[in-house]
């Protein structure tokens, strides 16, 4: 984070706009069956940069997920989500993007750790002075799971908001919905469905440079 801030300070001279800031996150997570569900919150941070038509973002959030009420889960876990992507603007309101996501669970076997490449597009629109809203849809390609298995269909949807509150201070909000159709073959007895579904809301502040 310190390196990002230092890099951000030198960016404006090269025509790059950079924002860096902390985030608070809410999350819910379901796996395999409807009973295995968790809810929690956490903190993290993110940084974004834009240079002409090229933009990039990286965020890290650490979530503490506890068994949700009425569920069958007995213990919670801590998840660390990393999300990195780069995008290229095709139009003043649309861009294509590519990146990767990685979510690791601690303790390791309490939930699936996932890594995948994300490829998709986003649409964004300035709805007012300094306020941009966006919607994105990504396909999660080549997902890898700590418990093995594969997923033929995985998707990641997002809703985002960036509002310049005052001067360099921005307010950010982001919603992510992930659906991963994981299939696994435990003990060679045949493939069974072990889907993963999660939602994360990130709300934060960012300082622009």
């Amino acid at each position, binding site marked *: 984070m310190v390196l990002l801030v230092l890099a951000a300070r030198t960016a404006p001279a090269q025509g790059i706009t950079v924002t860096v800031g902390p985030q608070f996150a*809410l*999350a*819910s997570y*379901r*796996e*395999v*069956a*409807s009973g295995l*569900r968790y*809810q929690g919150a956490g903190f993290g941070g993110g940084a974004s940069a834009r240079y002409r038509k090229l933009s990039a973002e990286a965020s890290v959030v650490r979530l503490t997920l506890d068994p*949700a009420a009425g569920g069958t889960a007995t213990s919670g876990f801590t998840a660390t989500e990393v999300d990195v992507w780069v995008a290229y603007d095709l139009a003043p309101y649309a861009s294509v993007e590519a990146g990767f996501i990685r979510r690791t669970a601690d303790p390791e076997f309490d939930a699936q750790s996932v890594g995948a490449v994300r490829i998709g597009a986003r*649409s964004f*629109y*300035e*709805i*007012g*002075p*300094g*306020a941009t*809203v*966006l*919607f994105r*849809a990504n396909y999660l390609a080549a997902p890898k799971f700590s418990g093995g298995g594969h997923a033929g269909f995985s*998707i990641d*949807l*997002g*809703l*985002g*908001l960036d*509002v310049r509150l005052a001067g360099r201070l921005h307010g950010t*909000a*982001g*919603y*992510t*919905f992930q*659906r991963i*159709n994981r299939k696994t073959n435990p003990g060679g007895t045949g493939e069974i*469905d072990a*889907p993963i*579904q*999660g*939602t*994360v*809301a990130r*709300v934060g502040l960012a300082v622009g440079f």
Partner: protein
Amino acid sequence: MTRHLRALAWLVGFAAPATAGAQTVQNATLRRAQQAYDNLEYRQVVSLAQAALRERLTGAERARAYELLGFTYGALDSILRAVDAFKQVVLIDPERQLDPNRVSPKAYSAFDVALRQVLLVRQLRIDSTSFVGGRGAVPIRFTVTQPARVVTRVIGTGGGSYMIDSGAWNGQVNLSWPARLANGDPVPAGNYTVVVEARLGQNAFSASQPIRVSHGSVDTLPSLTSLPGYQYLPETEVPPQSWRPLGLAFLYTGGALVGTLGLESSSLGSSSKRELAVVGGAALVTGFVMTLRKPAPRPAAANILYNRLLRDQIARRNQDIAKENVARRQQVQLTLVPMAKPSGAGPR
């Protein structure tokens, strides 16, 4: 009574021009002739004026003596003699002009006939002028009293002579001299004399006018910062307030909601909407606030194009001005001023 008044006015008409020049007369006989004319003693005027002409007179006195004779013969209805006398007047003083409002019609017509019977170059006029070398000319005008071959030249003090015109002219003549050498360069600065020579058979007459030619630098043009009548337009415009921000927030949030609902796994059940409510709510509130706020200025494409055209036009004009200024710095501003005329004109 009316006839007496008319006669008096007639006599005053003859008397007025004669008395006008009486103050310059030095010769006693001529003064007596003038006095006799003032007293309407015309017989005595003729004898005294002729006697004065046999004496030693200056040019002006001689012209005055002939003029007295001309007016007197006119008063005595001896028109042919009046014409002869006036011919002598204009040969001595070619620029002599009678005022038709102050002399009798008889005298004036006799003077006019006299003018047309002698070859003269009169009223040679060259006005002060200033122009860029090669882009103007010096207007020269004069009057030739008879059809004649007229040669107009400019003679420099160093001996250089430049032909302006050679042709057959009669009456008012208007010529223009570009003040250039044969190679196109402007004539050197200095004093010159414009000489007009008229020739008709054995008769010849010339008139001249000295002029001074001076050189100066040509003023350069200032660069343009704007075109008269054209102004830059604002390159941004504030769109009218609308519900568009809130509509877009609804659209994007709705997209996320529909996507979430549509993609939820049936085996995992309905997921929590808490996260979407937080972010979607924030988007809708932001959309509502932006709907109420004054919209952000946006680029006005037409104005930007217009301003670009205007800037290009001004740049092109300034390039032309720069080229023009380069040429102007190599040009010469010629200024011609007529100088005091020497008493060199006369029949040859």
